[in-house]
């Protein structure tokens, strides 16, 4: 073995450690700024039309169905529940979007209508229309796996964006606002 080979062999483990360390650092950085989420669920419904559904309304309002959504799109469809903490946290952001003139329609997920009505009274009501999906069956057709979840429906009734989790100012700024420019 030549001295050069020997040196290379000696340094190799350090090289591997450096590469591994840098990769780990990049991973942690991406985890921290939200670019990478290992728990993220894919959005197979994005790019597909709004699924067929018809839901009763939250009294005294009337419910809505797919045709009704198509007639009023583009709009934001937001699934929420009174028992869901991030739903209360995202309420301010939804109110801000309402003030920007974006139509937001709400769907109560697995919740009693009374509880949902009390929730809206307490946290403010950003919705133009509110329907109730008490069994949570329609939500499954949207590929929903928890609340809150928000969907952007474009003019043609195609789902253009899904956000699982509460809306925050940075989510609206980085994700929703650019899409709104394209689709509304």
């Amino acid at each position, binding site marked *: 073995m030549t001295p050069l080979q020997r040196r290379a062999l000696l340094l190799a483990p350090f090289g591997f450690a450096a590469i591994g360390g840098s990769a780990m650092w990049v991973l942690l950085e991406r985890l921290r700024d939200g670019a990478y989420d290992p728990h993220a*669920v*894919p959005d*197979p*419904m994005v790019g597909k039309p709004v699924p067929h559904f018809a839901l009763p309304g939250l009294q005294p309002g009337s419910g809505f169905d797919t045709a009704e959504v198509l007639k009023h799109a583009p709009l934001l469809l937001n699934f929420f529940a009174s028992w869901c903490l991030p739903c209360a946290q995202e309420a301010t952001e939804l109110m801000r979007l309402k003030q920007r003139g974006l139509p937001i329609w709400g769907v109560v997920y697995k919740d009693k209508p009374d509880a949902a009505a009390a929730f809206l009274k307490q946290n403010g009501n950003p919705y133009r229309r509110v329907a109730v999906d008490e069994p*949570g*069956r329609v939500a*499954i057709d*949207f*590929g929903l796996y*928890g609340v809150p979840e928000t969907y952007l429906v474009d003019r043609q009734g195609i789902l253009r964006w899904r956000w699982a989790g509460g809306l925050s100012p940075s989510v609206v700024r980085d994700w929703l606002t650019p899409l709104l420019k394209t689709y509304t």
Partner: protein
Amino acid sequence: MTRPARAALALCLALLLPPAAHAIGDPGEMLANPAQEQRAERIGEQLRCLVCQNESIEQSNAGLARDLRRIIRQQVVAGKTDEQIIHWMVARYGDFVLLKPPFDPSTLLLWGAPVLAVGAGAAAILLVRRRSAAAPVPLSEEERKQASELLGR
């Protein structure tokens, strides 16, 4: 037996035993027809619970898992095939819902990783053996003299 050894043995035994199969606490959830129920369970075991993520739909106590179990059973009774039911889930939740990822271009590296690892190991072994098998370079006249001096011959 020492305490850590006993714990290790218990762990090994636990791993040997089949996992506690089902979270279905409510027998009312199960289908009356045992063959259909078995089919539904087999399908549910292949599907990831989206809420807890490392449990199958059959194992999970999450509300969504319960809903999906009910949907599987409704579709089994309606005469849907396993493929149709699984496709129904994938259309809503993507390949992520499959506990066993499908073999396609995007998962080529995942499925190929063991082959790659074994190949790399085999290549390394071959390389090392070939090198050590090569005959050593014969000593020059100068080196031979030095060697015999050092050996005191």
